């Protein structure tokens, strides 16, 4: 039974969500002297206790496959493996979502301080200048209300503060930034680079949110390759360790954990006066009063909160006069392909761990090509090397290598570290059949109406995935590998990732200059509600071939500074 708790003090700002967007806003505001209440739907994070960094597989009796060998029979409870720092997954008990008939979509949610930044791939790419004017360029999608020059100073701030590796390359599709040195390429990456060069494809040092020099009290990377398990030394970026914990030390931030936001409460003037939430531990209904609110729950969850905040002034959900809340949803196009590379057979053993991710990557190289079969582009992520063996590490080799005994043992030794694979991450263009809305029939365990997803790829994306396959096959074959997977029939929907699978969902409260076609203004402030801001990837107008986290941080930083200034002026 829900109970209403007593009234709270009035916070300058209530931030909902502690991921890349919420973490950035909290840190920037706290540093500017603003008091913040930070809500997250999950528990506090304790890196020393929660992260499984440096654990060997044999330190767990089931070695990561799960009790009873669960992973041999189906999915384990751990979406990215037992040792990953994920807290959450594709399904959360008691918190469902639905998918409309004819659509496929999966939604990854991480309920914990830091959210998905505790385990994410750390890839940190600036959008290119042309990414902000996609409509002007090819007549598809919509232009942003801001340009690269508007956001560039915030990319500088973000990179300087969180630390990003890279090198100056002068490539238009991959603007240079403020970089820390990237560690040396691994052997397989050097082979990829040589093959790519032969095919006129650039292959350059990686841009990862990993520090290779001590930065702001954080020690440099110790090269254990386990970023995905969470880094106890905070040598990579997570909003929890790099922003939320330091912000808490200012004394201006109060954190509310296990606080599931239900709705934004408005007064007669249409301003947000409080955030109504469920304290999960006690199942108590509570309110936090605020002067302003920053919604940063992750694009889809943010849209859900706005759509569920219905009132006389906002019958279709707060700030949704345009009807655009939940629309323009996109994910990245994903496709992967790998092969065994005979040149790497029996490679002399060495420690190739390095950062938790590639040391070289392939930025999009055909940005000015004419007569392409599809619009926009993709970048390519590279994997290979001697990884710490885990359950299933040798499945691919076992498929290729029948038999047993000394021959098998020798073959596995020879093939270890001799596989290379590529993952493409490309741009989806918003389409009218891809969006999320409130399911009128389903609520979660707190009685909060849930999202229903609609998702369709178009030929734009299917052709792009096909191009990925052709590129990957060409590079692998140039390296001497043989691709054994038959080419999927892309145009019928085979091969391409499932919507949501790449976990780059965004666009659901897009910004724009026209309140009739956008939810937020160019500072991510709601057109209709001056004290409501959104600071995750929901304000994005397009989803370029660059993983969104760095841009979420840069945009949130800009929004936080604007908000603080507007508060100082008494405008919000």
């Amino acid at each position, binding site marked *: 039974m829900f109970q209403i708790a007593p009234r709270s003090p009035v916070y300058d700002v209530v931030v909902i969500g502690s991921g890349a967007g919420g973490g950035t806003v909290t840190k920037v505001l706290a540093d500017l002297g603003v008091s913040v209440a930070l809500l997250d739907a999950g528990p506090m994070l304790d890196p*020393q206790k929660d992260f499984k960094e*440096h*654990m*060997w597989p*044999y*330190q767990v009796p*089931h*070695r*990561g*496959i799960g*009790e*009873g*060998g669960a992973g*041999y*029979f189906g999915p384990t409870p751990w979406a990215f493996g037992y040792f990953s720092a994920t807290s959450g997954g594709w399904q959360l008990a008691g918190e469902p979502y639905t998918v409309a008939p004819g659509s496929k979509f999966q939604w990854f949610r991480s309920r914990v301080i830091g959210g998905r930044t505790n385990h994410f791939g750390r890839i940190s790419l600036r959008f290119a200048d042309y990414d902000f004017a996609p409509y002007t360029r090819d007549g598809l999608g919509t232009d942003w209300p801001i340009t690269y020059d508007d956001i560039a100073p915030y990319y500088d701030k973000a990179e300087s503060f969180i630390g990003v590796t890279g090198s100056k390359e002068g490539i238009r599709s991959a603007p240079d930034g403020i970089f820390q040195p990237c560690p*040396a*390429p691994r*052997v*397989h990456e*050097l*082979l990829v680079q*040589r093959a790519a060069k*032969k095919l006129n494809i650039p292959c350059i040092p990686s841009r990862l949110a990993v520090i290779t020099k001590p930065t702001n009290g954080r*020690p440099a990377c*110790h*090269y*254990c*390759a386990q970023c995905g398990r969470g880094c106890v*030394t905070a040598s990579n970026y997570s909003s929890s360790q790099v922003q939320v914990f330091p912000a808490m030390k200012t004394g201006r931030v109060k954190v509310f954990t296990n606080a599931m936001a239900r709705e934004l409460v408005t007064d007669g003037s249409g301003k947000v006066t409080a955030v109504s939430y469920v304290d999960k531990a006690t199942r108590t209904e509570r309110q936090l009063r605020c002067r302003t609110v920053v919604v940063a729950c992750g694009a889809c969850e943010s849209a859900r909160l706005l759509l569920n905040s219905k009132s006389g002034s906002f019958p279709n959900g707060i700030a949704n006069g345009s009807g655009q809340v939940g629309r323009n949803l996109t994910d990245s196009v994903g496709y992967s392909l790998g092969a065994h590379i*005979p*040149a*790497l057979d029996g490679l*002399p*053993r*060495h*420690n190739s*761990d*390095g950062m938790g991710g590639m040391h070289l990557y392939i930025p999009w190289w055909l940005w000015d090509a004419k007569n392409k079969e599809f619009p926009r582009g993709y970048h390519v992520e590279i994997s290979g090397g*001697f*990884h*710490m*063996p885990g*359950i*299933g*590490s*040798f*499945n691919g080799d*076992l498929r290729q290598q*029948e*038999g*047993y*005994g*000394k021959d*098998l*043992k020798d073959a*596995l030794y020879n093939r*270890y570290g001799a596989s290379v694979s590529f993952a493409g991450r490309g741009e989806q263009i918003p389409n009218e059949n891809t969006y999320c809305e409130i399911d009128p029939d389903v609520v979660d365990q707190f009685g909060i109406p849930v999202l229903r997803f609609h998702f369709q790829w178009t030929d734009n994306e299917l052709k792009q995935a096909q191009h990925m396959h052709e590129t990957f096959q060409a590079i692998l074959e*140039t*390296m*001497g590998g043989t691709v054994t997977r038959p080419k999927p029939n892309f145009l019928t929907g085979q091969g391409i990732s499932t919507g949501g699978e790449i976990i780059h969902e965004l666009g659901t409260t897009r910004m724009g200059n026209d309140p009739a076609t956008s939810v937020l203004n160019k500072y991510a402030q709601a057109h209709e509600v001056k004290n409501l801001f959104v600071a995750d990837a929901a304000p994005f107008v397009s989803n370029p071939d660059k993983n969104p986290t760095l841009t979420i941080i840069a945009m949130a930083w800009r929004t936080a500074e604007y908000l603080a200034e507007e508060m100082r002026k008494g405008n919000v």
Partner: protein
Amino acid sequence: MSETSRRDLLQSIALSVTLGPLSLEAAQHVHGLAAQAKAAGVYKPKALTSHEYKTLQTLADLIIPADDTSPGAAAAGACEFIDLLASQNPQLLAIYTGGIAWLDHSSQRLNSKNFVGASPEQQTKLLDLIAYRKNESPILGPGIRFFEWARRMVVDAYYTSPAGIKAIGYMGNTAVAKFEIPQEAIDYALKRSPV
């Protein structure tokens, strides 16, 4: 690595921030201790009978045998891993109970001895029938299916054990101050590479 040792390693990493180069010696020491901790003691099967367990040990060592530089799968603890999981999962236990019975029955028909009692040549001859997909037939099907399970889990268990990790040559999961790739490895690959 015990929780305490892991904390020591992390502390040594944290210390290195102020003291300069990482205490690699301390880190390696901790990793070494972890490897030793597992070795001692005799395992009592929780799910399989002693005959089944002995058969599994024989099979595991046929799949991944000892050689000059590394132990076989049984000595590396592969059967403990399988038995432990089977004790938690009746479906998995049934795969091993049934598979081992199939192996014994087939060995009896071929050699008038159960699998463990058969000679190494007889054991190998039987495995040669079920280790290759080309032999797929209604008679051999159950054996092929069981061998796939056993091979996969023995390989998983072996190469996630301290001995198997050493055998495959994984040299990471350690703290290093500067990431470098030995020139020898680069030269080896470039010499063999078509590009």
